[in-house]
């Protein structure tokens, strides 16, 4: 467990600010990669930022009959994501919130955001809102076992589910990364992150057809500033989850628990590069795949559950003494 210093707190603050500022850029970048691979020119990396600024200047609309649940859900989703951004070791290890929430806590916060949005979808009382909520919560329910088992597999080498411990254990023994357990956990975690952030092949973020929507169907009633918050939050979720998986498996460049200014800068650059690379790969892969039929998704999630279970079993049984 790390004692927090002033600079570590600064690094945490920087993490949050960077996630807030960079999330729209990340979404824009992924759209841009996609556009280029499709032979288009694309709107540019800054397009989501322009969209956000515009949405924030639009009229605030309350659909008749909705309650505070609908009104506050975007802030809760964004808030949980900001909190996760403050907990995760993205730039430096010594977040003051690290002892307050381990990886299980982070998963819980993630689901808290999902639940807030599903309740908002139900709260509108529209057919599409309920449909989106129902689909989203079904996927979330099936994702949970995989994600928890993957956390289990990751916690074995460091004997702790606290993030700083996991990341520093990996950084100290990079040899563990090529173990079957670690690889299986990576694949399982990648699948559930794709499912949780609503990317292909689970959900198509750019669909226009309501009947095929999952995440989008829940937010059909949001407009203006609230929509801006929802979109922003979904970008931030993607950013922090990519950052999480990047640092869990490739922790190089991350600043220590008691960092210097230079280490913080290196950490910032390192995590930005890692997230950008992962996002590029994700966007490229998405070009080649189509959305799965909804009732085939449980197969995908059962597969990732199996991989996570194998990851735990493999870590248990392969456990070769590291020296």
């Amino acid at each position: 467990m790390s004692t927090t210093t002033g600079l570590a707190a600064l690094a945490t603050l920087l993490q949050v600010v960077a996630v807030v500022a960079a999330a729209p850029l990340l979404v824009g970048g992924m759209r841009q990669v996609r556009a280029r691979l499709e032979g288009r020119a694309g709107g540019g990396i800054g397009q989501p930022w322009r969209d956000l600024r515009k949405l924030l200047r639009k009229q605030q609309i309350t659909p008749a009959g909705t309650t505070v649940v609908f009104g506050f859900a975007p802030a809760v989703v964004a808030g949980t994501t900001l909190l996760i951004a403050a907990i995760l070791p993205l730039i430096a290890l010594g977040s003051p919130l690290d002892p307050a929430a381990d990886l299980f806590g982070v998963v819980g916060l993630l689901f808290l955001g999902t639940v807030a949005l599903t309740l908002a979808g139900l709260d509108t009382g529209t057919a599409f809102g309920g449909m989106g909520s129902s689909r989203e919560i079904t996927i979330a329910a099936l994702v949970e076992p995989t994600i928890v088992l993957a956390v289990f597999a990751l916690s074995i080498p460091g004997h702790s589910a606290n993030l700083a411990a996991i990341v520093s254990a990996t950084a100290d023994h990079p040899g563990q990364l090529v173990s079957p357990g670690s690889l299986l956990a990576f694949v399982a975690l990648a699948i559930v992150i794709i499912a949780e952030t609503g990317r292909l092949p689970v959900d198509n973020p750019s669909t226009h057809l309501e009947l095929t929507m999952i995440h989008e169907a829940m937010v059909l009633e949001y407009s203006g500033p609230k929509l801006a918050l929802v979109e922003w939050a979904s970008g931030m979720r993607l950013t922090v989850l990519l950052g999480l998986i990047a640092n869990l498996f490739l922790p190089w460049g991350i600043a220590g628990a008691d960092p210097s200014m230079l280490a913080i800068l290196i950490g910032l650059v390192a995590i930005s590069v890692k997230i950008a690379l992962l996002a590029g790969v994700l966007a490229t892969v998405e070009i080649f795949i189509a959305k799965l039929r909804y009732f085939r998704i449980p197969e995908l999630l059962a597969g990732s559950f199996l991989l996570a279970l194998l990851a735990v079993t493999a870590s248990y049984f392969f456990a070769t003494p590291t020296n």
Partner: protein
Amino acid sequence: MTTALPDSPTVPALDKALPAARRAHAQAVASGSVTAALGVLGVALGLSAVFGAPRHLRIGWLLPLVGVIFDLGPLGGFFVAATGAVSIAVGIYAVGYAQREHWARFPLVMLPLFVAAMLLVPAAGSVTTFLLAWELMAAASLVLVLSEHHRAQVRSAGAFYAVMTQLGFAAILLALVVLSAAGGGDAFATIAAGSGGISGGTRTAVLLLTLMGFGSKAGLLPLHAWLPRAHPEAPSPVSALMSAAMVNMGIYGLIRIDLQILGPGPHWWGLTLMVFGALSAVFGVLQASVATDLKRLLAYSTTENMGLVTLALGAATLLSSYGARQVAAMAMTAALLLILAHAAFKTLAFLGAGSVLAATGLRDLDKLGGLARRMPGTTVMFGIAALGASGLPLGAGFVGEWLLLQSLIHSPHENNTLLALTMPLSVGAVALTTGLGIAAMVKAFGVGFLARPRSAAAQAAREAPTSMMAGMALAAAACGVFAVAPAALGPLLKQVLAALPTVGGNEAGPALGAYLRLPGIPGSMSPGLIAVALVVAVLLALGLGRWGLRHRPAAAVVPLWACGADSLSSKMQYTATSFAEPLQRVFDNVLKPETDVEVTHFAESQYLVEKVTYRTLQADPLEQRLYTPVVRAVTTWAQWVRRAHPGSVHLYLAYGALGLLIVLVISR
């Protein structure tokens, strides 16, 4: 003066209405306050037994030969205090509920009696006293379940409950008789002292019998069938007492008899508990996630939570049988925390469901909705309960589930195949339970309380009266404490754990301070800090959302987007059935729902559809597979036995005489 019979539903004549109403009010206040007072007494006694010296009381004259013995130690005190706390909330709530629902005099009398019986069970210090209190509790609860006996479903549920609870009692009776015979005494203290000499076979028999008896009371698979029947049909305050307090008695029995007196047992004891716990948890939550009856959903959620508690108990037993006492203490702490959290949020949930039932007369989620605007207070209360039941951060159940997962992932698996195989599977089961639990609770809250009303009754709902709200507020406060400040429970759990040496109790358990720290493992969590940080983060997000405020046109309220049509009817909303349909399809193989789609065409053309009827019946597959054959066999057997009953008194007397002769010959 003559009045109408108390349980007759007819409205008294106008001139008698006023005094009758006043008397009903007085009766309800009396019953509720006696219940609450008993609860306060229970909490006080329980806490004093946990922190002070164990209390011992012997009333020799009450029962011939053995007398009645009360012996309240830290473990019993814990359960007495929990039961008492539930009773306070329910007692206050019952004041308003009994008036609103026009309770008859009989249930009003039985309510405090039921609470008293439940308080006596963990206080019992001998086999006889325990059985007596147990039977009193069962009988009182049965009578309360039957308080709306004019409805056929209630009578059917009552019969089901009566049979199962008596069979459970028979199993416990047999187990305790065997135990006291082998342990050489009636008092638990005597048996515990002599438990070293009990043979392995006897231990196994007692464990299996108690697992049946107590497991059925706790709603564990496969003896859970009474729970989703009786809990929905009982009046809601009684449901709350049964679901939040009475099922705990099953767990208490398992801990007291099997772990405290008989333990430590062999490895397979813990394993058996874990298997039954995991199966109950997953099965219960699956049924809850497809249930459309609000109270049935909550009842299945009780099976789920008791399953998790049993899983934690089993993990503690298994781990301590392998010598991992620190991790076992973590699992045991998790079990105790889960019991407390479940008691708090399940009380609140059932009381909330009771308010809805009283306001609308509906339990069917498919017909509810839109209550958030009509019953804002109840909605907030139920929301707190649902958050607690879903095991998410800021919910009452989070800390317990977190601790359970931590104890499972930190088990010492090196060179131990059994642990290396059970723990990943258990983690998977707990995680699946949590995931589906979230879906079930989102359905209960989102479909039941948000959106727009799906029936006229829900449209006309009114907020519950003050006393009902006060009872719920008390339970909600407890939920809040468990969610953000579990440190308050630290000393209590420490004392209880110390009384359980067979499950690693004398080890240092997890430290419940501002930070929850695991013993000997670098792992920590702070629910309070998370809550504060989350509030800050949400405020920050709201601040982000205010950017560009001065450029915005004035805000407006507009009708819902109906894809261009003029308005959406409330029938176009998703219902609970449709909400759960994907899950029902995914788990089709386990749930085996009976669905039926019927398409009626117009007479003129086969291409035009006049109406489509969709019907789905979610029966309990276990009930059909397991119970129906048993019931059929018993019926056949009874038919056969009936031939010996021709109705002749002389023959019956001859039976008696024959029996006497046989006894004489045998005992010669």
